[in-house]
């Protein structure tokens, strides 16, 4: 630990807990609390990673979660951010995106051929000749990308919770802490969030060599902790802003979605690098990074350093470095006038200050793994050029750089805050905040500590008043004096490699050249150069890019504008965002029975339905044929509990149905059932079902499973508009249904009920209410799957009893349970077209031959007017029942195979199946109206391309083919 300093006040490492880990095969030790980067740096390891494009060596840049060139993998996880992720004992780490290790990355040759790779180079080459592109694409894809994904990484469930507060304070620096206290003292419920593990923000490390500020921080923190109505969330970042103050707070444990009544953004500012040649070498780092290394982790950034600054902050950094025992070779101030505040302090320490100078380039050590010096030149601040004729060289092993700040305003932007460029601080500051949003501190353009504290109080007071409380309005005066940010801290260099965006290896000349090619709008420039598109999302590069573009175009910065800020503030794991993943499902009360009887289930909407019950070793096709055959020969029973079931009560119930559906119901007799068909206003078939009249003022409607919720919803909406004297009760979940059908159905049923089941007394299409096996049951006689079929509707909880009684009673009749797939075949044999299967999103009733179900001589029903229009138009297609040849043994056509005539598509098959009972292949298909007549022959093209002849027949098939 050669760079470890003696104990620092407020350090985050625990020196009593030693940790061992390896990086790139070498063993390292660290203290608990170290990040991977701080531990490596403490040990003198400076090359921590390789850059995305040129594979240049990179070290610490920010130590603030945007060192995206220092991504490591532990063999399990990848793209781990070494600058902020705590090192753990036993970790085995390597850098991502190298070929042969971080020190001897074979891909570092790319750096030397960089002139061949100008901005947007990939648009300019590799596409001719076309046939070679796949080769080049492969090369480029392999070179790009960062870490390698581990396909064995486990699915990790993170909790996603919701919480609520009056005031959410983002950022626990001095401003945020003060704001939180003020709001909490007014009785508000406050949540304060900070991505760092410890509170305090810059107050903890920006000390200018004076450690007495730490007592102020301690006091602030004690106060926050003493207030019970402040909830502190450290080690958690506010990932984005979503409407109505919904802010997901991401931590290792998961996501807490905070719904706040107001939000105070006190997120501070990101330090921005000055741009000079080789400002990316390991050992060149932001001033604030040097301070973080020093005070959080007690690691000296370097031994003999140069501080290059374009503001007063660099002086503070120099004082901090001195305090830690780093030798300051020189402080280079790019401004024409040095710091009034700090000049004396540095002079007192004998530090050489070069005013009006710049670092023209950093000089790499022989193996390019670090810095061995810097070329210093006088700097013409007006022209932003180095005067190279007076250059000289200073030796050093590190450079701390400070040039200014960019507001961490992502959430403000996402919330729709109007931002304005303030030349007093050379940064964008909020000018128009959305309702309930407040900004304070550096993000608000307030930099001086006392002012920030006042601004925190001011923002809290604003929030208190916003929430209806009483609080003074204390305006905080804007920043005065020297700007904390430099207007243009760039040093051009003919050889380039003066990096603006470290994520993407973008240099000044890339912007110039992009502009030359016409990409001189900030959004176009972003897209062409990819500035700000890397994992750090422009935190250290967007502001400099804007300044450079402004310079190129000769426009003031505010005319350039900013790119749009999007979530997330930091890249956020898919496992966190996906969370537990709820997959809701509905089960009928017979689910256990189906399981016990080896049903294969199918999902229909949220429902799990038994599709068929294969015997051991039986194929699906066999199982379905067996079940269907049993229904035809004896009897079958199916769980229809997922059907939609709706009661329509009231004197206007029949009238309601007549408006809602296509048929007539006012003259429907009590005890009878009628078909219902629902259209939409354009005349498209939506669903169908059966309406049973239980009383003058009560209908019981049963409809298909998948549309039930939507149909009920539309009924409710229609009733809102029509205001008829009815009541709607959705009993889909409260009632179950069983359909027993087949020649023996009546006999089986008769053993369980007193009701007269004779055909005369209980004819087709009628409904009876009676006890079956002791259960009050609504019995509906329908012919959906067989002529002799009874739907038994009863309370869901009593369905298992009813089912078991039927199964028991059916034993001697070989009663066979059948599933929903079998039902499909049965209804096909019966010649029933099914909405959603035999219709699509544009089918009208005429096309499925449902004219009989449409009663046009009503005053109104949904879709009626459109049908009057459609009726005048020639039919485009017609659904017809068809059969294949007797004993057809060729390739079986499938649903959705096309009906063709040479190059013309005449239609398609919507349902097709072999029927064991009929010993025939039967189906429905759309054909052109010319082919719709019984006896017409058309061609179906099967999957392999073979043509299969089909003949239009009369439906129901069961009558046509069996005369049943």
């Amino acid at each position, binding site marked *: 630990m050669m760079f470890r300093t003696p104990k620092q006040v407020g350090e985050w490492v625990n020196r009593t807990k030693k940790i061992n880990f390896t990086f790139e095969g070498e063993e390292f030790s660290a203290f608990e609390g170290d990040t991977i980067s701080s531990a490596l740096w403490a040990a003198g390891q400076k090359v921590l990673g390789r850059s995305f494009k040129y594979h240049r060596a990179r070290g610490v840049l920010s130590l603030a979660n945007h060192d995206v060139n220092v991504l490591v993998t532990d063999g399990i996880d990848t*793209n781990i951010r070494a600058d902020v992720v705590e090192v753990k004992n036993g970790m085995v780490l390597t850098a991502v995106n190298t070929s042969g290790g971080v020190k001897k990355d074979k891909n570092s040759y790319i750096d030397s*051929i960089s*002139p*061949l790779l*100008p901005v947007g180079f*990939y*648009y*300019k080459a*590799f*596409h001719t000749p076309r046939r070679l*592109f796949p080769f*080049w*694409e492969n090369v480029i894809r*392999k070179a*790009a*990308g*960062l870490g*390698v*994904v581990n*396909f064995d*990484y486990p*699915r990790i469930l993170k909790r996603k919770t919701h919480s609520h507060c009056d005031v959410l304070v983002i950022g626990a620096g001095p401003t945020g802490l003060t704001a939180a206290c003020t709001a909490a003292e007014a009785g508000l419920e406050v949540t304060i969030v900070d991505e760092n593990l410890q509170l305090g923000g810059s107050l903890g490390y920006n000390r200018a060599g004076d450690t007495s500020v730490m007592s102020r921080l301690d006091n602030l923190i004690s106060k926050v902790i003493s207030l019970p109505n402040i909830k502190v969330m450290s080690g958690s970042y506010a990932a984005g802003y979503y*409407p109505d103050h919904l802010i997901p707070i991401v931590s290792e444990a998961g996501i807490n*979605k905070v719904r706040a009544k107001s939000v105070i953004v006190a997120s501070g500012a990101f330090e921005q690098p000055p741009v000079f040649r080789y400002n990316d070498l390991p050992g060149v780092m932001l001033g604030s990074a040097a301070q973080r290394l020093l005070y959080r982790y007690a690691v000296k950034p370097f031994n003999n350093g140069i501080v290059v600054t374009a503001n007063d902050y660099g002086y503070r950094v120099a004082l901090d470095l001195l305090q830690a025992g780093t030798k300051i070779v020189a402080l280079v101030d790019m401004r024409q006038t040095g710091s009034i505040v700090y000049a004396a302090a540095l002079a007192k320490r004998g530090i050489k200050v070069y005013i009006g100078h710049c670092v023209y380039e950093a000089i790499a050590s022989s193996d390019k793994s670090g810095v061995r010096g810097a070329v210093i030149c006088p700097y013409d601040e007006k022209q932003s050029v180095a005067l190279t004729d007076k250059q000289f060289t200073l030796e050093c092993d590190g450079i701390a750089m400070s040039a200014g700040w960019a507001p961490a305003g992502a959430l403000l932007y*996402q919330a729709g805050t109007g931002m304005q460029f303030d030349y007093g601080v050379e940064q964008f500051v909020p000018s128009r905040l959305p309702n309930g949003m407040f900004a304070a501190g550096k993000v608000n353009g307030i930099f001086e500590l006392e002012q920030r504290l006042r601004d925190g109080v001011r923002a809290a007071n604003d929030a208190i008043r916003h929430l209806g409380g009483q609080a003074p309005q204390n305006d905080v005066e804007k920043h005065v004096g020297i700007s904390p940010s430099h207007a243009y801290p760039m040093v051009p260099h003919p050889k380039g490699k003066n990096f603006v965006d470290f994520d993407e290896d973008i240099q000044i000349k890339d912007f110039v050249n992009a502009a*030359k*090619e*016409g990409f*001189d*709008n900030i*959004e*176009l420039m972003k*897209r*062409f150069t990819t500035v700000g598109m890397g994992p750090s999302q422009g935190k250290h590069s967007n502001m400099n890019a804007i300044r450079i573009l402004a310079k190129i175009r000769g426009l003031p910065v505010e005319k350039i504008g900013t790119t*749009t800020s*999007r*979530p*997330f503030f930091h*890249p956020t*794991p*898919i*496992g966190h*965002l*996906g*969370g537990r993943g709820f997959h809701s499902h509905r089960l009928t009360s017979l689910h256990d029975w189906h399981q016990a009887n080896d049903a294969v289930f199918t*999902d229909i909407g949220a429902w799990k339905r038994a599709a068929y019950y294969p015997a051991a070793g039986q194929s699906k096709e066999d199982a379905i044929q067996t079940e269907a055959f049993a229904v035809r020969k004896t009897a079958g029973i199916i769980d229809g509990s997922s059907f939609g079931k709706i009661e329509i009560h009231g004197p206007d119930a029949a009238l309601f149905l007549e408006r809602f559906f296509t048929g007539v119901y006012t003259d429907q007799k009590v005890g009878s059932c009628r078909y219902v068909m629902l259209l939409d206003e354009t005349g498209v078939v939506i669903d169908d079902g059966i309406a049973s009249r239980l009383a003058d003022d009560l209908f019981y409607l049963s409809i298909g499973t*998948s549309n039930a919720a939507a149909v009920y919803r539309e009924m409710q909406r229609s009733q809102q508009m029509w205001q008829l004297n009815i009541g709607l009760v959705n009993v889909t979940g409260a009632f179950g249904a069983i359909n027993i059908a087949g020649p023996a159905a009546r006999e089986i049923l008769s053993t369980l009920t007193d009701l007269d089941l004779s055909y005369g007394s209980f004819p087709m299409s009628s409904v009876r209410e009676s006890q079956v096996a002791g259960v009050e049951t609504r019995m509906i006689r329908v012919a959906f799957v067989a002529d002799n079929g009874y739907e038994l509707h009863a309370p869901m909880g009593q369905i298992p009893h009813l089912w078991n009684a039927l199964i028991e009673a059916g034993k001697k009749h070989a009663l066979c349970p059948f599933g929903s797939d079998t039902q499909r075949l049965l209804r096909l044999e019966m010649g029933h077209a*099914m909405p*959603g*299967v035999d219709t*699509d*999103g*544009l089918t009208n009733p005429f096309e499925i031959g449902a004219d009989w179900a449409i009663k046009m001589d009503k005053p109104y029903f949904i879709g009626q007017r459109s049908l009057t229009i*459609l009726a005048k*138009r020639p039919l485009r297609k017609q659904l017809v029942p068809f059969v294949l040849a007797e004993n057809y043994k060729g390739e079986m056509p499938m649903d*959705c*195979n*096309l009906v*063709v005539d040479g190059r013309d598509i005449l239609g*398609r098959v919507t349902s097709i199946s072999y029927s064991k009972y009929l010993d025939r292949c039967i189906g429905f298909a759309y054909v052109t109206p010319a082919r719709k007549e019984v006896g017409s022959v058309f061609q179906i093209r099967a999957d392999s391309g073979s043509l299969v002849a089909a003949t239009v027949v009369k439906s129901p098939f069961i009558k046509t083919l069996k005369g049943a």
Partner: protein
Amino acid sequence: MPLRLLKFALSKEHPAPRFFKSHETPKKSYDVVIIGGGGHGLAAAYYLAKDHGITNVCVLEKGYIGGGNTGRNTTIVRSNYLTPEGVNFYDASVKIYEGLSEELDLNLFYSTRGHFTLAHTESAMRTMRWRAEVNKHVGVESRVVGPDEIAKACPQLDLSCSGQAPILGALFHAPGSVARHDGVAWGYARGADRLGAEIYQNTEVLGIDVKNGKVCGVKTNKGYIETKQVLSAVAGFTPRITEMVDLETPIVIHPLQACVTEPMKPWLDTILVSGSLHVYVSQSSRGELVMGSSLDPYEVHSTRSTLDFVEGLTSHMLDMFPFLSNVKVVRQWAGMADMTPDFAPIMGKTPIEGFYLDAGWGTWGFKATPISGKTMAQTIANDSAPDLIHSFRLSRFEDYELTGEKGAASVGH
């Protein structure tokens, strides 16, 4: 390294010229005014010049070129639609795309990856077969494949989808591709510019003059432009333009969202779509997973992001790829989609003479960029729409002759 890059290393000055000229104020009149500097509008300008010799054309862009849905989509190009009309149309687009990098001399990274539309239910399988059959009939390479073939193309995919929605099969569409979306706009802009069209950025249309049912001019924030022909190619903003000429259409705007992960080394070589899980995903040449989902469920003219979207999408991504738990989403964004009732575009002439619509691009606009440019150029040049886009005419709604792309979306159960 290709020799073409050598000149960059050997030149002192950056040797590439501007992609397109920067003009100050528009002229007093143009033969054709194209509203919208996205891929479609720029392509139309390009083909007006190239195919029809019409070069007195200006393209008016409110923001910057390619800044709308051209730069916001997930860059998938395919033609495996449901209706023969749709398949023919998008197939013509794919064919142009395949040679477009060469034609425009700009590498669009047109990368043919193969496209799987996964089916988790029997009803989805039916739809896949329907699409495959229509595709095959029209001569487009699509077929239904089983889980084995999917596993071969994407061994990382959990075919059971974490037990939630087992994959039964897929529609495999070999020509399915991805491309650099920005490049398409830039390439057409450069092409149109070189042939004489003028491109105006930051130029907003404030009104369209119609007299006696004929277009006669366009009001902009940079002055009045006389013209007899106006093309609206502003998907996402179409209702705002049609309102200027009192033209009713079925178009409503819904946001469509997408997101992207950190770059990783290439592993996903195909394009995957799951209708049931509302996911489509491909890996860009930079290494990011580019992911999209279904439309937002309500109308709003905004490109705001929602948390629901990214939560739902990532949850389903994990069902498909459980190992992605710690891969991070970097950015999410949204575009505004022109939605039509039948999920097909609205193209061609309108009741207003000289006002042409290239609209209703919903979620399928990027893939149609070349062919819509070409057919709209043809429509304007001849004042008559070619057969290829007949089914997409605005009057189909009055005629109750909607295009059946919606069928694929609502075939259920």
